[in-house]
Structure formats: structure tokens, C-alpha cells
């Protein structure tokens, strides 16, 4: 006989936590279905109650009826229903598992890219420790460069040649 069901082997609380929020409703529907099955199981006892053969033996006068029933009943094996669906579930798993692995691998690549970027940024010298020279080394486009891009003091956009204040821009348009 196949293994009997005694207790739920699934930790529904942990399972619920793992469900992504967009699929919560589907999960709840699934859980409801599972609860229906569970209730159907629990409606009947795991073993049927025993029949008291002695009292029937005493009273029923028909010869051999009780004995015949007794032997027939104890010899009768209630057939455990055949399992047709587990195979389908296994098939689903077989097609699902590689997809999960693929997805996780893709995400892992993203994680690695992000991690590399993170490490690169963390390895940059701190601004507090930089001199103007090291700043020029790290960010050549933003540092003051008197040779390639000379600027007038005080080195802000308003004092440079060709500066157009914003409201004039709007008027020109």
C-alpha cells in the first residue's frame, strides 16, 4: 500500500512568506483548495470502527451468516486508489526546475555585475583624503583644468564666456 497521509508535511507559514506579493491571491486560492481537500480527509476517521461480532453471533439465528460475513469482511482489503496525478506533477517539476535554475542564474549575473560596481565604487579614494591632484586623476572631466579647459575665476558657469542666463534663453525661444 502506498504511504498514508497522517499530517501535513508543508510549512504553510514559510511558504506564504516566499510567495511574491503579486501572486498572493493565487496562493490564497491554492491554499483554499488544499484546505478543502484536508477537510474532506478529516471528515472520515483513518480506520473504520470495529464490528462487534460476538453480539451478532449470539442473536442472529441464520446459521453461518455471521461467520460468512466475518470472514469475508476481515479478508476484504479496501483498495487504495491508484495514483494517476503524481506523475503529472513530477512532469511539471521536471519542466519547471530548469526554468528556475535559468532564472536564478540570470539574476546571479545581475547580482555579480552590481557587486562588481559596488566594489569599484567602494575602492575609490575618499573625498576627504583627496588632493586637487588626485581629484583630477579620478574625475578628469570635472576637475579644474587650466591647460585643456581654462576657466575664469571664480570658476563658476556665470563668469565664463558665452554664458546665457536662463530667463534670456526662454525669451529667445
Amino acid at each position, binding site marked *: 500500500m502506498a504511504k498514508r497521509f497522517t499530517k501535513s508535511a508543508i510549512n504553510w507559514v514559510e511558504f506564504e512568506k516566499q510567495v511574491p506579493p503579486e501572486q498572493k491571491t493565487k496562493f490564497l486560492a491554492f491554499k483554499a483548495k488544499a484546505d478543502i481537500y484536508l477537510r474532506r*480527509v478529516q471528515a472520515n476517521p483513518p480506520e473504520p470502527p470495529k464490528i462487534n461480532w460476538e453480539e451478532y453471533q449470539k442473536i442472529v439465528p441464520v446459521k453461518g451468516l455471521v461467520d460468512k460475513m466475518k470472514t469475508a469482511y476481515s479478508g476484504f482489503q479496501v483498495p487504495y486508489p491508484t495514483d494517476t496525478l503524481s506523475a503529472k506533477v513530477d512532469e511539471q517539476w521536471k519542466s519547471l526546475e530548469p526554468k*528556475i535554475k535559468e532564472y536564478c542564474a540570470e539574476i546571479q549575473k545581475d547580482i555579480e555585475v552590481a557587486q562588481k560596481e559596488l566594489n569599484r*565604487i567602494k575602492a575609490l579614494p575618499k573625498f576627504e583624503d583627496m588632493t586637487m591632484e588626485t581629484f583630477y586623476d579620478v574625475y578628469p572631466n570635472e576637475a579644474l583644468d587650466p591647460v585643456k579647459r581654462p576657466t575664469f575665476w571664480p570658476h563658476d558657469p556665470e563668469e565664463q564666456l558665452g554664458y546665457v542666463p536662463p530667463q534670456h534663453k526662454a525669451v529667445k525661444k
Partner: protein
Amino acid sequence: MFSRLALRSVAARQSTPTALVARGSATEVSGLRDEKNFPRPVRGEPGKVRLGFIPEEWFQFFHAKTGVTGPYTFGVGLATYLFSKEIYVMEHEYYTGLSIFVMIYYASTKFGPKLAEFLDKEVDNVETNWNAGRLSTIKSLEDSIAGEKEAQWRAQGQELLIEAKKENVLLQLEAAYRERALTAYQEVKRRLDFQLEKTLLERRIAQKNMVDWIVANVTKAITPDQEKQAMDRCIADLAALAKN
């Protein structure tokens, strides 16, 4: 389900590179300085001074021979010598300098700490400004990594789903088995109970029938003569009882 999660992680990926490009795409500090043998100098602490301008080393130099008060005594002696021999002349500029020194000392003790605090705060603001971009990028990267790890974990939760499905199948089988067992039991019990009830009923009817038949026959068999005798005997018994 995967597509939705993929969209989320793609969004996280796209936000980070643009911020970084703005800050400079140099993957390495250009100039290729040999960091190991020629490490970049780190700003150190300023030298220790006493009275604001005299280096600590001079005091250490004196300490072995003259102890703690040595340098001060030397200073006082030197100053006395310079003043008394008029090597250091106390003329107008000296008095100006003295007055200015007193004013500056008073101002620095009164307003110095507050000004220092204010300036430090300004410096901190400038520093946070510099670091803001980097910190926000770091945070967003870390968040995206955490989100992606969570996505991986959730994807693996699907295994639980398959297990739950298997358990559902098992549940249904178990329910069917229990129903079958119960049906078998109930059928057998029904038949036995029927036999039991039938037998009991038959016995009851037979008993009742017999009692009725006996009573009927007895009443029939009593002749008028016997009846009269029985009555006379009863009266005599009653009389005897009444006498007693």
C-alpha cells in the same frame, strides 16, 4: 511570473549606470600610480604645541636635564634678559602688539569655539555634498542586490509549490480511501443490523402471539361449573381472611 520579476531587476540595473556615468567613467584612477610602493600620502595630525605655538619637541628636549618646569624657566629667564638688557625694545609697536594680542586672546576665547563649530559644520556639509552621489549609488546598488537575492529565493519557493501539489494529490487519495473503507464498514453493519432487528422483531411477535393464544384458550376452557366453584372458594377465603 518570471517576466514581472525580470522587469523589476532590469529597472534596478538601469538606474545605477546612469548615475555613475555622470560621476566619471574612469574605471581606474588615471595616471597609473604604483599604489603599493608609492602610496598616496594621507593627511596626518598637526604637530603638538604648547601655549599655541611652541613645539612639544623643545619641551622633550629639556625634560631629561631640567624636568617639567625647565623650559618655562628658561623662557622666563630669556625674556627677562631680553627686556632688561633692552635687546628687545619696548617701543610703540610693542604696546600696539600687546594690546592687539590681548584683544585677539579675548576674542578667541569668547567666540572661538562657536566659530569653530560653525565652520566645522560647513565643512561637514561640503563633505556630505561630495559623498551624497556616491552614497546614494552605493545604497541603490545594495538594494538592488538584496532585491535580486530575494527574487532568487522566491523563485526557489516554487519547489514548495510542487510539494504542496503532491500533497494535495495524496490528500485526495487518502480521502477516497477513507470513504471507501467507511462505505464497506457501513454496508456490512447495515446487513448485520437488519438481521438482528428482524430476529428480535420475530421473537417479539411470536411471544405476543403465544401469550394472547394462551390467555384466550384458558378463558375458553373455564366452564360455568368451574367458575361457580372458583367463586365459592374465593368467597370462603375472603370470609376467612375477614374473620382474621
